[in-house]
């Protein structure tokens, strides 16, 4: 469903990504790991239109989306959660998700009250339910705990009905308990869409990923199932620097 071909990003003399070719299936859960500076964020930035690749293609269901602006890419079905929480703190939890949900419906009616759009409200509530935040629908987003805010991030991304969900370190700063909840959450929603997840927490990676791609200095070092990656001597060398 998603395929990058020879994707490269160069900043002056620095190669952030070098000829990266990845293929992700329709309902696959793929983890991207690698040491600092390996190019994981750069890859995400290309996929979500924040960064224009220097060369290469990004094919979403056969259509090249490389270089498209973020809003067009969102319309085509790629959503992203960020490392630093990006929610609207002064809006309620439900409102945060509703705003994302209504991006999929276009209407010129400026005079109709937003609550009249029943289908959007229902979708927003359903999304909140999926991430376990329905009970907190009317709480101000700023008042949620850190873990709940990170899950709200995921809900906002989910509300845009993506085909591909890019999660950028979703468990950063979470306690062990919150991490467990988030792992469950991701597992629940992974049935109907493709998920790309960048993580440093190996427990999360090992539990969730069906396949893992290892990046190192902008290149793909290895790809395979978690078991294969764990045994891969080159990966061990890079991570343990032996």
């Amino acid at each position: 469903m998603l395929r990058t071909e020879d994707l490269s990003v160069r900043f002056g003399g620095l190669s952030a990504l070098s000829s990266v070719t990845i293929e992700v299936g329709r309902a696959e859960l793929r983890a991207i790991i690698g040491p600092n500076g390996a190019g994981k964020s750069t890859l995400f930035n290309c996929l979500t239109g924040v960064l224009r690749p220097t060369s290469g293609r990004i094919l979403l269901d056969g259509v090249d989306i490389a270089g498209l602006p973020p809003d067009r890419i969102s319309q085509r079905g790629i959503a992203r959660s960020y490392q630093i929480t990006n929610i609207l703190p002064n809006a309620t939890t439900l409102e945060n998700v509703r705003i994302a949900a209504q991006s999929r419906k276009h209407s010129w009616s400026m005079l109709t009250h937003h609550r009249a759009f029943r289908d959007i409200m229902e979708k927003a509530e359903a999304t909140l339910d999926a991430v376990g935040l329905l009970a907190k629908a009317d709480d101000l987003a700023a008042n949620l705990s850190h873990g709940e805010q990170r899950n709200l991030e995921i809900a906002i991304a989910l509300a845009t009905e993506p085909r591909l969900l890019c999660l950028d370190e979703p468990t950063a700063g979470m306690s062990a308990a919150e991490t467990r909840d988030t792992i469950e959450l991701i597992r629940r929603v992974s049935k109907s869409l493709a998920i790309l997840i960048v993580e440093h927490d190996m427990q999360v990676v090992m539990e969730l990923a069906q396949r893992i791609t290892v990046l190192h200095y902008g290149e793909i070092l290895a790809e395979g199932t978690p078991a294969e990656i764990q045994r891969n001597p080159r990966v061990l060398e890079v991570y343990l620097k032996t």
Partner: protein
Amino acid sequence: MSAPAAEALVEVEAIHTHYGKSHILDGVSLRVGPGEVVGLLGRNGVGKSTTLKTIMGLVRPSQGQVRLEGELITGLPPHHLARLGIGYVPEDRRIFRLLTVMENLRTGLDRAGVAEARKQALLQKVYDYFPVLAERRSQPGGTLSGGEQQMLAIARAMMLEPKIILLDEPTEGLMPRMVSQISEIIRVLRREHVAILLVEQNVPLTLAVSERVYFMEKGTIRYHAAAAELHAGDAVVQQYLGI
């Protein structure tokens, strides 16, 4: 493991640190003895750098204490801690790019109460240890190579005549040849009786130079052992640094 006989030089007691709501350090406790080299290992994002920053007063813990030679130093401003004898070498070196090598060193040298003669002696000592810096003393810091900048960052901290240096990933991004030089520099610091808290991801280097090693994961210390008892291939190393 039995506690070292001497009183700890730096003692970190159950600190919790947040960035906003993000709970980065979830109860970290460790200690470094005088003149001791202690390693702090763990993957990216587990909180190693934040631990150093909390000790250095760059980040305020929400809970817990930090002590230097038994005295509470939690919440003191960084410039005060530098004068008390804590040196800090951050992850991206962060030398003053527009200042010359000499001026970079002088920022730590020009302290109150240090006689001119001693300043000169200190400068000479550092130039002896790092001849490259002597050669480039009038060049702006930004023109130095990565390895040279790393040496300058460490030399600059040495100008404070610190009791302990907090070293954050000194070998990151360096060529293998420079990595062995860093080992050598750490040994030099050891000879000068400067304690080191070494944050690293390079396991063999850390095990080779440290006396004790802490392993961190998700904001806490998970394992603690004497370096001599560990090898790079051990299961515990795999667990906290590998995949």
